[in-house]
């Protein structure tokens, strides 16, 4: 095993240096930090929502970003879609790789984000899809409208100006696991699972290169969770790069190719999902898995820190001192070890 400090901290770099060929990157998040200044100029405090986060989304793969509620993972969705509020400050880059050039999502003008990125190059599967649907129009009307808007103005858009064919809309519905007949329902007639699938179809309408799914399974029953994760896997199989942000480790285990674990706004462990979930190195990852009903059912003591008051050094050891395993070196920065990334708790 090698233990090398890396500048762009991503497990793939480590894997590449170990000689593994990797599929093409669609989106590279490079040491991204997001802070929110509270009060005038931050006098009432600073929220460290994300700190030095590096991730790589690759075509054809699902990356699961996991952690408890309040660990900072959902701010990434807003950052990548250019939807951060005015009091946010970012550092680092998030490069959306295009055929010709890269677009830094942290600095791109709103005009580019709204015309080229949101709904087009990046699709969003939101937490509660039902609340994003207009109550007075059928699911079919809303999908057709979205397809028309997206295809009418893209450069790649061909002859679809004006109308989306019934077949286009039915095809989208089927890719999202909906029977075309269900499209003629109004939102209030759809179950939570059906509404979630309409939301999924809307996210696919722009044929995005990248799909962001932000807690898409919350509140759904296990059968519907499986439908959602199967849908994400199917999108990946078609070549989409998928980021699944979730606190549902069972869903993440089911679908992820790669995994990253976030605690107190930082990535504490990352690597191939099978390895991370079967042999977690970080005590926080072990704690998350050990809380599952089939993993021991033991809660992690305490709470994640307030993101206005994140302890220095290893934030997890400030919550649960001296966890079992190799001693913590106190460094919050992940290092590459054997194709994986680990912060503080480097295996011996």
């Amino acid at each position: 095993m090698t233990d090398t400090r890396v500048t762009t901290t991503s497990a793939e770099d480590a894997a590449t240096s170990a000689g593994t060929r990797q599929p093409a990157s669609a989106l590279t998040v490079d040491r991204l930090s997001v802070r929110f200044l509270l009060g005038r100029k931050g006098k009432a405090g600073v929220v460290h929502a994300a700190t030095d986060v590096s991730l790589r989304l690759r075509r054809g793969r699902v990356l699961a970003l996991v952690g408890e509620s309040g660990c900072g993972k959902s701010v990434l969705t807003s950052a990548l879609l250019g939807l951060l509020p005015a009091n946010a400050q970012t550092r680092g880059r998030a490069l959306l790789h295009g055929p010709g050039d890269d677009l830094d999502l942290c600095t791109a003008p709103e005009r580019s984000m709204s015309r080229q990125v949101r709904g087009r190059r990046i699709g969003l599967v939101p937490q509660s899809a039902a609340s994003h649907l207009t109550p007075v129009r059928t699911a079919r009307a809303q999908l057709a409208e979205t397809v028309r808007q997206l295809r009418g103005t893209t450069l790649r858009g061909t002859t679809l100006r004006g109308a989306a064919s019934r077949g286009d809309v039915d095809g989208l519905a089927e890719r999202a696991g909906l029977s075309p007949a269900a499209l003629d329902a109004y939102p209030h007639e759809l179950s939570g699972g059906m509404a979630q699938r309409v939301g999924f179809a809307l996210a696919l309408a722009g044929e995005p290169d990248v799909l962001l799914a932000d807690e898409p399974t919350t509140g759904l029953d296990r059968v519907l969770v499986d439908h959602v994760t199967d849908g994400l896997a199917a999108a990946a199989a078609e070549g989409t790069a998928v980021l699944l942000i979730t606190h549902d480790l069972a869903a993440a285990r089911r679908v992820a190719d790669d995994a990253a674990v976030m605690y107190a706004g930082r990535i504490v462990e990352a690597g191939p999902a099978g390895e991370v979930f079967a042999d977690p190195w970080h005590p926080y990852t072990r704690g998350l898995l050990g809380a599952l009903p089939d993993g021991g059912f033991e809660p992690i003591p305490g709470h994640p820190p307030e993101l206005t008051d994140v302890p220095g050094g290893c934030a997890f050891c400030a919550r649960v001192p001296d966890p079992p395993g190799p001693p913590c070196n106190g460094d919050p920065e992940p290092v590459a070890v054997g194709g994986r990334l680990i912060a503080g708790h480097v295996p011996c």
Partner: protein
Amino acid sequence: MLSATDLVVGYRRGRPVLDGVDIELHPGATVGLAGPSGCGKSTLAAVLALLLEPWSGSVTLDGRPVRRFRHRVSAAERTSIGVVFQQPRLAVDPRWTLDAVVRAPLVASKRRDDGIVAELTEAVGLTRELLGRRPHEVSDGQLQRACLARALVLRPRYLICDEMTSMVDASTTALLVHLVRSVAAAGTGVLAVSHDDALLDAWADDVVRWR
């Protein structure tokens, strides 16, 4: 015992959601009720919480038939049964601190705090600092901890948990379920409704599965 016999209940005339259902909750025992969304398990939970009146059939609380439901339930019946719902944000007044949320049933029934608030808030892991916050200043999981403490603050003889953990992460789930198991061990009868079979297998003494 809290029981229901031959329940028929629904929301629209002529379309019962439950048709001829029986269930018994015994002190100190936990019944798990599993099944997909829309199978009627939350409807049964609402009847046992005395929040929904059945069309026919009977509900019996510790040997006495329950004759009134919803806001017409007697104070003695209401305080015998604690309830925790799926969505904590819909179950609390957004203007109240978590401390006020937990104490609300004591205030409403004019009972004194004999130390139960401190005991429960410690058990659910809510610090003094968190108790001073309002719902928008805490996570769903932290708010649900307050909702469980509120449901237990009158030491109910029965507890109805309707998808209590489906919005919260695994660690908070484990913590909340451990507390409910400990109150069951001390004599409370529990109905645990969930779509998560693996969770109910780890939680309940018996699991009823509906399709």
